[in-house]
């Protein structure tokens, strides 16, 4: 019986569960990558991993540090150029699910990964857009994985790098986006999902031992809470030992 999961582990396990029925997932590095590898191990061995470096159907044994690690190219079904990846694979919406992170998330799941502070004189210069704007516009759905703090969950983004649900209902349609946009934000405290009608992020699940009040405390706006938020199914022994085996490789 493995010991109690950390909230970080729980976050990864919950993210992995989002991929049970996915055909393909687009992932960057870090926790999303770990979650996708875990999903292949325990839920969905046929899951196609796609990295923006051009590796389609990669089957890495180790969690890669970069999206371009050699193991990704060596194990991929196909390796394509970056123009082909964005033009032929991402843009047309061929990828079912995209995992994204961000430095700031707002109530409509829009993302900032560009700057903290003013663009011309930033307090903190972040890496920038990368593939996120087009990935979020076109992939079937977007799952956001982020640490739950007031620094991250802000009432207003300093910079809109990536559009989630814009200013609410109809925004994505007006922008001509192909994908359904963010369907969940998975944090170390719980899970937020957009309200069907208003598109505003709503707390639909908390991790074991976490209260909605704690989540509100860590959120920079008045957080909507579902009538009775579920408590996240704790990691099964299989999930947890698989995750620990994976990260120990």
């Amino acid at each position, binding site marked *: 019986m493995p010991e109690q999961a950390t909230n970080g582990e729980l976050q990864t396990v919950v993210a992995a569960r989002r991929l049970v029925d996915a055909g393909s997932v687009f992932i960057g590095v870090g926790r999303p990558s770990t979650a996708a590898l875990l999903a292949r191990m325990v839920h969905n061995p046929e899951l196609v991993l796609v990295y923006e470096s051009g*590796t389609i159907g990669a089957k890495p044994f180790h969690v890669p540090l970069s999206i371009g690690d050699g193991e990704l190219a060596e194990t991929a079904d196909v390796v394509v150029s970056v123009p082909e990846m964005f033009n032929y694979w991402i843009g047309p919406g061929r990828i079912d699910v995209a995992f994204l992170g961000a430095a700031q998330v707002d109530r409509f799941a829009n993302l900032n990964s560009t700057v903290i502070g003013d663009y011309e004189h930033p307090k903190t210069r972040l890496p*920038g857009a990368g593939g996120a704007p087009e990935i979020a516009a076109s992939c079937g759905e977007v799952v956001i994985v982020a640490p739950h703090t007031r620094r991250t969950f802000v009432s207003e983004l300093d910079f809109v790098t990536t559009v989630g649900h814009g200013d609410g209902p109809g925004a994505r349609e007006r922008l001509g986006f192909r994908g359904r946009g963010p369907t969940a934000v998975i944090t170390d405290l719980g899970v937020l999902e957009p309200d069907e009608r208003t598109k505003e992020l709503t707390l639909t699940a908390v991790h074991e031992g976490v209260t909605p009040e704690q989540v509100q405390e860590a959120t920079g706006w008045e957080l909507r809470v579902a009538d009775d938020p579920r408590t996240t199914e704790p990691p099964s022994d299989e999930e947890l030992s698989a995750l620990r085996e994976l990260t120990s490789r």
Partner: protein
Amino acid sequence: MAEVVSLQEGVAELVSDGDSVALEGFTHLIPFAAGHELLRQGRRELELIRMTPDLLYDQMIGLGAARRLVFSYGGNPGVGSLHRFRDAIENGWPHAIEIEEHSHAGMANRYAAGAAALPFAVMRGYAGTDLAAHTNVRTIECPFTGERLAAVPALTPDVAIVHAQEADRRGNVQLWGIPGVQKEALLAARRSLVTVERIVDELEPRPGGVVIPGWVIDAVAEAPKGSTPSYSLGITTRDNDFYRFWDEVSRDRDRFTAWMREHVLDA
């Protein structure tokens, strides 16, 4: 036919102060050796173009070689910040740099337009973001459907420098593994230099091999381990520890400067 030259000759012949230079390689095959040679030759005022500045441009920016940076993702992949890149933008150290940033899709299409000698490329992107207001992108209407799309201007660097696994003596180049945007960058640029792990008598065709004929390349130079700490698939491996180590070294201006002097400038 590409001239086979030494790295020093190739860089000296092709790159001048003030040039726009694209040293490409998407995580894989990043031309570190060529970039370091540029620094040793004291090139300044460069417009540095790269989708992912990565450690190489962090080093070049930190030593003050850049006037301007055109990019789409300025992070240390899987590790965190590029501290020299941040210090230049946040604090203007060692001097302020101008930036033009895009999305990956935008940069990739800009290179593709350059390779096709078209003035722009059409794509779906930038819509609804603040990026659109802070960079060089326009909207364009489809003459058939009326749909509004993004237009991005072609990238046509003065010089493109890429690294590949091998070349033959006539300058034909072969790379394999993640191909990134190297072919587009080479074909889009006015002048081009390819550094290679090894020069061989005959390119042996291989799975995933991207071959670029020598007659569209200006110069080829042998530079074994020329992409380290990035890698050349099948020949060197990515030095992930160095990417983590760089996070420490690059945090401190003095430590960075000392490290660059010892390991690059005086090397």
